[in-house]
């Protein structure tokens, strides 16, 4: 079992809030050395020939812990993993020694080419085998543990025989990979699929979560006027997502938490304020847990971080 021999990947990652590194903020960060827990970059953005991105990333890596987030490995594709891409990834990891490396439970490559989106998978036994095989191969290739991120989805497959969180839990169990829990994706998927987000979170292997993602979503509707949330990463984190985040942190304690904001990128102070918000949620809950060690989701004396998740499950048009 490769899981038992893998180096744990979270040794150098502080349990604090970090942000996605954007070219717009390179200079501000280098000139002002702001107090954030870590930065995260998309691996594929640093696989080009060189130029400014590598110079900036090296300077930032010298000062901050780094998390590397892949968007192109296509772990859920039927076809074998792209060996060239895997070696580019290995070289990048050797060069920057990120504290965490993560990829998605999704597919994006096909004979037609690279489809540049995170596409959904059927949750079947055959798919489980395929994904576990690919994760074993990735972890063997990079010589360390990877984290798997739960997807945001707009459709599901009629043939699925597993629930999404149980499918993920089984992959984690089989491969020894960690979990990157994207709380915004949980909210988006649960709203779009009419699932209960609290039940979803409670079915997740929370003790294997090593990082959290938070982001903003856009709201749309489908042809039957049912709410359709789009994982847009283009605005602040929603109240509902903060509430689900607090629900997770109450159970796990503080975790490295990333603010993802990839489109309509805001000014640096706005982005940093989102990270500070996450930091405050963690500190509050951690303080309450320390004061009352038996605290387990009952009404503590810490302040509430938003609407109770279970109450707003309804969404438009769920049966």
């Amino acid at each position, binding site marked *: 079992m490769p899981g038992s021999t893998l180096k744990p990947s979270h040794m150098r990652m502080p349990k604090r809030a970090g942000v996605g590194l954007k070219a717009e903020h390179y200079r501000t960060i280098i000139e*002002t050395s702001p107090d954030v827990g870590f930065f995260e970059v998309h691996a594929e953005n640093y696989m080009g020939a*060189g130029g400014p991105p590598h110079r900036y990333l090296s300077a930032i890596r010298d000062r901050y812990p780094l998390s590397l987030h892949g968007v*192109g490995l296509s772990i859920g594709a039927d076809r074998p993993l792209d060996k060239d891409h895997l070696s580019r990834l290995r070289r990048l990891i050797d060069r920057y020694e990120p504290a965490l490396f993560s990829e998605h439970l999704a597919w994006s490559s096909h004979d037609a080419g690279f489809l540049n*989106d995170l596409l959904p998978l059927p949750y079947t036994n055959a798919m489980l085998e395929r994904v576990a095989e690919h994760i074993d191969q990735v972890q063997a290739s990079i010589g360390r543990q990877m984290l798997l991120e739960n997807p945001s989805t707009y459709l599901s497959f009629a043939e699925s025989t597993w629930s999404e969180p149980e499918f993920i839990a089984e992959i984690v169990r089989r491969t020894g990979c960690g979990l990157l829990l994207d709380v915004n994706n949980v909210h988006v998927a649960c709203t779009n699929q*009419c699932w209960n987000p609290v039940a979803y979170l409670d079915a997740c292997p929370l003790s294997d979560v090593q990082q959290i993602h938070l982001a903003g979503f856009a709201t749309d509707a489908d*042809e039957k006027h049912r709410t359709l949330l789009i994982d847009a990463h283009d605005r602040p984190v929603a109240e509902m997502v903060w509430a689900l985040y607090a629900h997770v942190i109450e159970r796990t304690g503080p975790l490295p938490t990333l603010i993802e904001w990839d489109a309509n990128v805001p000014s640096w102070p706005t982005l940093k304020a989102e990270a500070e918000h996450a930091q405050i949620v963690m500190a509050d809950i951690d303080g309450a847990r320390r004061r009352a060690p038996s605290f387990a989701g009952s009404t503590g004396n810490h302040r509430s971080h938003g609407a109770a998740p*279970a109450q707003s499950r309804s969404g438009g048009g769920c049966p």
Partner: protein
Amino acid sequence: MIDTARGSTRNLPYPARRVRAASLAEQQAAFAIALLDAQQPLPTGLQGPDGQPSARRFAVYRNNVVVGLVETLKAAYPVILRLVGEEFFVAMARMYVRAEPPASPIMLDYGAGFPRFIGQFEPATALPYLRLLREITPYLRSLVRRWIKDAWDIEDAVQDILLTLHSIRHTYDPSRPFGPWLVGIANRRAIDKLRRRGRQALRETPLTAEHEATIAAAGNSDDALEKQHLEKVINDLPPIQRTAVDLLKLKEMSLKEASDATGLSVASLKMATHRALRNLRNLLSDRRDP
């Protein structure tokens, strides 16, 4: 504060019925084809929360893929975007995305075949000016390569030259040969790029502990103030002196280049620079010794 509903899976997606599924390979092939071509039927076996197919939901994936790739092309070909306009570009880019989706997950490399595609794109061949720019691009690239080695910087410089050509196209005199005019502009832009690059490298590479300490010690905001003040003082100079300082000192043109660019004689540029520097010295020393 939170109803945990621990262990309840009542709303989790256990499917109500089993369907004989296509193999995974077939399924993903159908998905990929339907993504890139809106005329194709929806892939089967995909459903909304009521178990029914939903074109609107599938369109989210389609839109993510196509819009994402069109945006990548926009970023890679700003000159073409500006020349043909948004609507024409997007129409052309959407067809290209369908004809040649990316072969690799590295989006930085996507779109190398786009100029060739435009060459075959019927409505675009009706734009002779666009064809001209497209045809000179490989030649410009070879010119730039004499000055610049880094592939990234070469492409930057080529785009820069194309933009320059577009913005000063009215200065071309059709009675004179096109080649030397083009080469002159291309070389100048390439050298500019090289200079800027040199200065950047000087500023950027030696990021050492001492540099950090200096920044942390709040020297930084003084620098910014200094720069702001300098800009203001330069702006207050008489126009000819301001032009001379801008071209010779800030843009680092030679006297000959500045003379070509402004139509001023070398002698008057020298005189203007001399006067400007004397004025600047006075203005800046006033501030230091109030």
